[in-house]
């Protein structure tokens, strides 16, 4: 894996960018997510979060299992607003 490797595919964030942010003091997944959008795209962090957690562990010495994941938020998969809007009528 090179420094230019894309870690977050939804938002095109490279390993280098993540490493820079960690070096600047962002030591949690929550902080990195909010400044780089990793975990805010359609995959909701399923791809990038474990990779970023490894970067965090390597750079800060935190144990991988102790790195707190960001809050998992609904919906589980992307849903069309139109489908949700129609659903409301049937359950009103």
């Amino acid at each position, binding site marked *: 894996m090179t420094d230019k490797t894309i870690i977050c595919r939804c938002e095109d964030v490279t390993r280098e960018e993540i490493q820079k942010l960690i070096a600047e003091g962002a030591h949690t997944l929550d902080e990195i997510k909010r400044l780089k959008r990793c975990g805010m795209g359609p995959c909701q962090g399923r791809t990038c979060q474990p990779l970023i957690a490894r970067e965090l562990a390597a750079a800060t010495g935190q144990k991988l299992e102790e790195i707190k994941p960001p809050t998992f938020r609904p919906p589980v998969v992307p849903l069309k607003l139109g*489908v*949700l809007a129609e659903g409301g009528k049937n359950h009103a």
Partner: protein
Amino acid sequence: MPKCDVIIIGGGVTGCSIAYHLAKYGCTDVVLLEREYLTSGATGRCGAGFRQQWGTKTNCLLSKHAVAKLERLAEELDYPGGVEIKQQGYLILAYTPRTQAQFKKNLALQKSLGINARWVTPEEAGEIVPFLNTEGLLGATFHEKDGHANPFKVTDAYARAARRLGVQIYTYTPVLDIRLEGGIKTVVTPRGDFQAPVVVNAAGGHAADIGRMVGLELPIQPERHQILVTEPVEPVLGPMVMCFYHNIYCQQTPHGSFIMGLGDPNEPHTYNTGSSWQFLMQMAEKAVRLLPVLKNARVVRQWAGVYDMSPDRQPVLGEVPEIPGFYVAAGFSGHGFMIAPMTGQLMAECILGKPTTLPIDMFSLSRFTTGDLFIEPSVV
């Protein structure tokens, strides 16, 4: 025990802006304490809008000054990449004659203060937002200098600039207690005690809890507001669309995703930041009715945050007379982000004993005892 000049409690945009402005005025021995990460409270969960279309002179001027500061924030704070400002206006919809009459009054006031918002007909509204459903619409007000910015970036910009000037920011450092001994306040945290003659409560939805630590009952309560975001799509929506009647707002970020939220009048006052299925359905229905093109946009995430609600939905700003050196900047009731650049400046001026750029007496805590409430007709 670390001693400093000012301790700020709360690492949202307000706390970070106060820290920066204090340091900018030369008061650099400042400690900011945040219970989680910066923006973890209301700032990082908000709808991100800023508008100058208000119904009182105070709020018009406050937001006008704040927007002028936001426009050159990245430059002032030397923040490469910027804070994702999008200034394509707020379109505020009117569906009832009463709202229309109020909006016309607001427009006259705004004009007198140099805010060039204008009344637009439903047809003109349809030109500003081509796919707007104008059914039942009486008209709208539009001001192209309103817009939105990225709250994470704005806060990060203030925090980094403050740190460069010497401010110490401690994240994941909750305040457990505050002891008052003479003029000195000791703030107790798991990281140790901090001492200063001045403490600023900028704790948002937690402001009342912090107040109780010094025996103060602040009439500020947390109230959940929910919000969702779609996947990013091509830019199609310029302005923030806002409607007091449907109690909703919707914007498209420069990144391409739509962000929208609605207020629930029956929401209880608790510190609940959970998401509900009911919100998702209601929001979808209202958004698709108003902007039918959104029916194909996919929701990727929903979340919630708390407004720090005060009885008149206006903030409490300034020193608490009974506790010299204890300041409050909280109770923003849903519009804290947009005025934060000015809140920081005014609070710093107030703390340092300088004349304030704009009057802040109307935001004093004592208004809830004297009954001089601050009535702003244009809030969501």
